[in-house]
């Protein structure tokens, strides 16, 4: 028994999960289906996709949600992928909304259903640097609908552009604030850069 407990403690210390495996099982209802390859990708459709993710919660390292407008497991401990709750995190929402591939060398358009649990290979910092074939940096002044603003720790997508200082940003922000549209001034914040997705067809 002592050996078992020691191994358990060691596992938690190494993983940094702090026993989070004991958390809820929202991910049990998610799937690993392949994406649907698409020939088109419009900014309107991306807006609709991101808008539908509103109220569905936030999960660090996550990318699986349903469409019941409720975060099934809010207020989990932050920065623990092992809590397996509902919602994407900031970069996961951007990845799915931008129809990206898990292979960073591919810039095609891949539609992921909401319940497909996928985060993608990019962190907010990766997006900010324009890493990956589908991504690139843009001047913040020209960032438009469904472009994004990213810092080293966060990314939000422009939902409605404003000319008066801030923008309506759709983002997966945190466990307590979930995924929603917020008024943000990232455009004028020096820690944020402009990011875009290649390949819009409309």
């Amino acid at each position, binding site marked *: 028994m002592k050996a078992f407990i020691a191994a358990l403690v060691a596992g938690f210390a*190494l993983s940094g999960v702090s026993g989070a495996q004991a958390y809820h099982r929202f991910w049990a209802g998610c799937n690993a289906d392949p994406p649907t390859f698409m020939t088109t990708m419009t900014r309107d459709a991306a807006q609709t996709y991101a808008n539908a993710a509103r109220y569905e919660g936030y999960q*660090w*390292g996550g990318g699986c949600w349903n469409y019941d407008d409720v975060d099934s497991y809010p207020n989990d401990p*932050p920065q623990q992928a092992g809590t397996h709750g509902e919602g994407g995190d900031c*970069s996961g929402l951007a990845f799915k909304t931008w129809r990206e591939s898990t292979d960073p060398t591919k810039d095609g358009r891949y539609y992921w259903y909401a319940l497909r649990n996928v985060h993608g290979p*990019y962190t907010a910092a990766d997006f900010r*640097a324009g*890493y990956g074939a589908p991504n690139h940096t843009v001047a913040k002044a020209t960032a438009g609908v469904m472009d994004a603003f990213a810092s080293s720790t*966060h990314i939000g997508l422009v939902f409605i552009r404003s000319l008066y200082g801030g923008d309506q940003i759709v983002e997966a922000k945190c466990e307590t604030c979930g995924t929603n549209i917020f008024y943000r001034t990232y455009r004028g914040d020096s820690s944020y850069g402009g990011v875009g997705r290649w390949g819009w067809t409309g």
Partner: protein
Amino acid sequence: MGLDRLMLNAAAVTVAAVAGCGHGGDRPARLLDGRPAAEFAPVPGSVVATARVLQLSALADCLSISERATVPADTPVVERVGVSGRSLTFASRTRVFACDGGIDPAGERPAPWCGAVFGELEDGRPADPRLDVLCVDRAYEPLAYAFVDPVPGARWIGVRQDGYVELYEVLGGLPVRIATTCGIDLENDHAAFSVTQYDAEGRELLRGELEAAVAG
């Protein structure tokens, strides 16, 4: 190439990567930079990654001038060179940073760096392993990096590789950036590292799996 073929290829890469984590490989004779691979006698079959403390100028190829300007000039930078990976690690009071070495498969970043990582510290410990799976090694195999937080008394972090244990020295009071080509699940943006922490004499302090996910 059709989608099915793409997905099959991705699955094959995943299987190959995970399958490559056994004990069947040979112990490499050299590190990534060509130097002979030293062995730490108390850990038979080990390969010691080189580690040294550099000045901030070492970050020149990795961070932009504006990013470097936010880091105090006397910040120590730990450089590590292993068999497949190399990294630079440094920290501020609240955050830890790393530059990960390798080849950028998208061809957008010049060698030797293919990733820059930013993580938050909570009580001096990384809040998240900050997994990076964007790089590939010289054989174009997936290469994953993550932070390990040394336990008190740990001098070496051992990572089970294909046929040997790679040892990373704990330096500068910083989290240790480890790398592997094993246990990487690209389809799910996860990686599992088999990690053992040793004291200065090579006695095991902790052993377990570090399961990390791309996040944030």
